[in-house]
């Protein structure tokens, strides 16, 4: 793995935009002294942008360990549920990492991002939404488990349906290339 790749991943973790792969990459390398140094510099740069003083340290390993210890063991009845469990763990790991960042840097809600030249729209983006949808979508048709009441089940039912309706509406449009078809087909694959 190249140094650049690792630094990009680290930057993504800091900006709360890391995918599961990037997160694992950073966690694997977190014993590396150079990476810890880079993390510290990123934090100092960010703090400078926020006019804060801090002494950053890359200590996500212990936070992640704590999160994993708290996490209930994922159910292992079917392959589908196994993957859902993995996503859920990854989500809580993300939260743990971000909690670690916040510990040193209370003011990262404004969205000022080191790797980004222009400010992104000011949104309070919940950290776990992406994985949560994936999990809901994968499990929506495959299991006989009772659905949870409330938010999770509404989103699990509706979002896959809405995504498909959107994709398939585009397929049926006249005078199109194969692209909308391919998008719709990709929603049906697992």
């Amino acid at each position: 793995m190249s140094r650049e790749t690792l630094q990009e991943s680290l930057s993504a973790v800091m900006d709360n935009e890391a995918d599961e792969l990037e997160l694992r990459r950073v966690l694997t390398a977190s014993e590396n002294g150079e990476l810890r140094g880079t993390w510290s510099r990123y934090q100092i740069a960010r703090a400078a942008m926020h006019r804060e003083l801090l002494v950053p340290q890359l200590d996500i390993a212990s936070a992640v360990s704590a999160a994993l210890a708290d996490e209930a063991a994922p159910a292992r009845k079917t392959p589908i549920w196994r993957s859902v469990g993995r996503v859920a763990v990854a989500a809580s790991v993300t939260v743990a990492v971000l909690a670690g960042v916040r510990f040193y840097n209370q003011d990262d809600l404004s969205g000022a991002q080191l790797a980004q030249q222009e400010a992104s729209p000011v949104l309070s983006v919940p950290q776990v939404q992406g994985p949560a949808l994936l999990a809901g979508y994968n499990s929506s048709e495959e299991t006989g488990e009772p659905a949870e009441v409330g938010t999770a089940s509404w989103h699990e039912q509706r979002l896959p349906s809405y995504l498909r309706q959107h994709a398939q509406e585009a397929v049926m449009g006249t005078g199109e290339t194969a692209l909308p078809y391919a998008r719709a087909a990709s929603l049906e694959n697992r």
Partner: protein
Amino acid sequence: MRAIPLYLLGGLLALPVQATEVQDLLGRLAAAERQQSFQGTFIYERNGSFSTHAVWHRVEEGGEVRERLLQLDGPAQEVLKVDGQAQCVSGSLADQVSEGQAWPARQLDAEQLNSWYDIRVAGHSRIANRPAVVLVLAPKDQHRYGFELHLDRETGLPLKSLLLNERGQLLERFQFAQLDTSVPTENAMQPSSSCRPVRFRAADSMAEGSWRSDWLPPGFTLTTAQVRREPTADDSVTYLMYGDGLARFSVFLEPLKGRAVEDARSQLGPTVAVSRRMSTDAGDVMVTVVGEIPLGTAERIALSMRAGVPEQASQ
């Protein structure tokens, strides 16, 4: 994609060479699928999904265009279209198809695209062993994504299409692995037995006027408005679709009937989904925006939906 009106071509003589070349390429792209038979295989890739597909595209002597699409790995998703209208669809692709009359014939309108995208020729490439011209469509505002199109030098067909976000990150890839311009045999055009005739789901009524939007990203116009019965619920859902000529998004408005549901945001490859709870006189409604548009734009659209008949036509 249909041919660009002739009057557009007439006005181009005075433009610089680059602009002329762009218009020429867009014109050929628009005409290619109406005039050119071809067959080939392509890949589609987005975050979390990679699949391979075959396409047989046949232009009949009378001008009728027949196209068969088949996924080559995993489940055998299949579609047969005649003049753009689906005739048969396989498996799970079929369950959400709605009434056919609502779709206006969409045309690739170069003038319209020029209003919302900076279009330029970025160079040359080789895709599926064919020389291609690279066309970049960079959005002029932050409300849509950019495209990179690799068009076949010989036919104008899109050999490769990339969707890029505002930081240039790849959101999805569509790319031919092999393409030839021979006419597919009658045999190859025959759908398999699992391709079932399209059954249309009931749309209760057209929904025009029951909802309006205080704000839309510039260039997007309403193309579909329906009230649908949601298959997973007893509720009627208002469905609206908007497009700018390339990108499109859908808006779903569903009465919550007292259920407690939280707002949510998700991204699946190129497609974003934003759900926002909205209070109306008739109770809370969940507004869900789904489309190939940036998250912030989807968020603003969701915030801008309003119940009731518009006083004056919204933009």
